[in-house]
């Protein structure tokens, strides 16, 4: 089995206090600094979004033929990152993988905040975001309804369902730990606030049986949901006729990429967190290695999908499909994003075959950052590079991002970190009750 998933045998009280220390202990200086910087970055994001609304999306680098570029790339990238959280909390729960316990809470939070970033983009890329409600079927005075044959209303349904279900799943998972926070709160105001959010949870056995059923139901519905969300997102591309988009392999290909990039983000976040909060006994080297293995496994699926797509481009006999690969992607403007994608997601990930790499946290951390960027360039090359050079050379063009494009892209990174640091400070980010259950499972002798 390798390394343990839980080290030592602290008392339940000591364990509770250790895991609650990030929210009740003094704020660390690192926390303050990161929170401040990410807060300023978040203000920049909203400033740039307001600027975009005020002037129009002409402030971005989008043009004809490249009408979709950074915004949709960011949308697909962020929502993909969200997938690993649901994968860990739902799919690994159904497969009874005990090691998921310590990391599922913050992976779910990562999902929620990543989907928040993702949800911004379909809205702001509309150009006239105040008409976003047109995508929802409501009895309009014009009597016209959304066209449900288009993938865009599917997107609205998929993303909003995904966000809602992830939020509820996360919240019901939190109830027992909010109750612990309520009961250990040092001040009255904290006690009242955690008490309100705990809704009166008492850990009653009569409640537990219903609770477990609902939690299991959520895992059951989140599993097909997570597979459906990126499939629907990929349909935005696949149901068009653009070479490089029009491909039946897109749904599974996008789902694999999503889980791959999500696990990279989990590793990118988990490795510093367990160090800063000294949680090496709860989030152990085994967790890091398991995540690295999952990155390798999903990376291989992604690699297979890439080559399957290239093979299909050739095998289809469609000249435009083939030209998309050998001209638009490999040699067109911004072609470096295509080659970076191959370098990071196909070649660099192979280093995880080595046990020495998988057990070296710093190396994993650096590699996952490269792959996170690689997953971004993957989406960029699919979206923008295919649009740059489609059928007629006379209508070809090139995309050049504007400073507002970059500002909004990095701004969502700041906003994500901002929300994540609020979460680390106010919510028990390692599931206390589940870790206690795991500990009692691993050390049964403690039941005298």
């Amino acid at each position, binding site marked *: 089995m390798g390394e343990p998933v839980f080290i030592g045998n602290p008392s339940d009280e000591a364990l509770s206090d250790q895991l609650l220390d990030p929210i009740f202990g003094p704020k660390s200086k690192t926390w303050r600094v990161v929170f401040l910087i990410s807060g300023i970055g978040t203000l920049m994001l909203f400033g740039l979004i307001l600027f975009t609304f005020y002037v129009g999306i002409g402030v971005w680098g989008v043009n004809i033929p490249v009408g979709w570029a950074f915004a949709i790339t960011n949308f697909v990238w962020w929502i993909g990152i969200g997938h690993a959280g649901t994968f860990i909390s739902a799919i690994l729960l159904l497969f009874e993988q005990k090691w998921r316990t310590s990391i599922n809470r913050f992976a779910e939070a990562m999902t929620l905040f990543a989907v928040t970033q993702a949800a911004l983009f379909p809205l702001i890329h509309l150009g006239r975001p105040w008409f976003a409600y047109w995508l929802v079927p409501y009895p309009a005075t014009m009597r016209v309804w959304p066209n*449900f044959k288009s993938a865009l209303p599917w997107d609205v*349904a998929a993303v909003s*369902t995904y966000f809602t279900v992830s939020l509820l799943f996360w919240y019901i998972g939190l109830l027992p730990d909010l109750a612990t926070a309520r009961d250990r709160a040092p001040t009255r105001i904290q006690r009242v606030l955690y008490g309100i959010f705990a809704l009166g949870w008492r850990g009653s056995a009569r409640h537990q049986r219903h*609770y477990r059923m609902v939690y299991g*139901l959520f895992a059951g519905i989140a599993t097909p949901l997570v597979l459906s969300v990126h499939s629907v997102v990929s349909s935005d591309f696949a149901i068009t006729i653009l070479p490089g988009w029009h491909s039946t392999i897109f749904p599974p290909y996008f789902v694999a990429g999503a889980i791959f990039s999500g696990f990279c983000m989990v590793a990118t976040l988990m490795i510093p967190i367990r160090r800063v909060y000294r949680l090496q006994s709860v989030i152990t080297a085994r967790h890091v290695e398991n995540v690295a293995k999952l990155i390798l496994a999903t990376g291989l699926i992604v690699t297979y999908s890439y080559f399957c797509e290239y093979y299909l481009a050739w095998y289809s006999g469609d000249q435009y499909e083939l030209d998309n690969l050998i001209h638009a992607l490999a040699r067109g403007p911004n072609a470096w994003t295509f080659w970076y994608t191959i370098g990071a997601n196909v070649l660099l990930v192979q280093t995880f075959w080595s046990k020495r790499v998988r057990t070296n946290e710093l190396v994993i951390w650096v590699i996952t950052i490269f792959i996170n960027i690689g997953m971004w360039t993957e989406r960029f090359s699919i979206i923008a590079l295919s649009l740059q050079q489609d059928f007629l050379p006379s209508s070809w063009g090139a995309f050049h991002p504007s400073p507002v494009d970059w500002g909004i892209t990095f701004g969502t990174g700041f906003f994500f970190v901002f929300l994540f640091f609020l979460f680390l400070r106010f919510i028990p980010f390692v599931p206390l009750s589940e870790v206690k259950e795991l500990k009692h499972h691993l050390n049964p002798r403690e039941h005298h």
Partner: protein
Amino acid sequence: MRAGIAAEFADADTLLVAIQKLRERGLKMDAYTPHPMLELEDVLGLGRSRINWMVFPLAIGGAIFAFLLQSWCNAVDYPINIGGRTLYAWVTNIPITFETGILATGLSAIFILFVVLGFPSLTHPLFKVDGFERASVDRFWLTVQGEIDPAELMRLGALRAVPFGVAP
């Protein structure tokens, strides 16, 4: 309903043994533990939750609603001719039907759970019991409603046994 004796136990095994000894007596018992314990539900004689059967019709209902809504909007109320494609293509309704079914499952499961559990219940007689706050940390509590003497719970290994929810 909400009054009885609450007893604190230091560990789960003592609690389980105590419940086993008391279960013949037809007392209404509940246990409060810092982490989920499947064994408790067995000894307390609690069956499997049936919330799933309450959620199921609502989930299917949500999906059917979404399917019919899309069909009615695009094929009956305001058919849109886009490039001469068929006006009613039920296949394209599937993604939203699926998503709405999932959404209906999630929302109705939470709603039913809260109704069954009586949440939010921010005030409860047990919260007034001294030391009950450790039920979420490292202590195991048992409540017994019916004819029982607190001393009997002490003999079963309780650290303390106190009445709760007594009318003033």
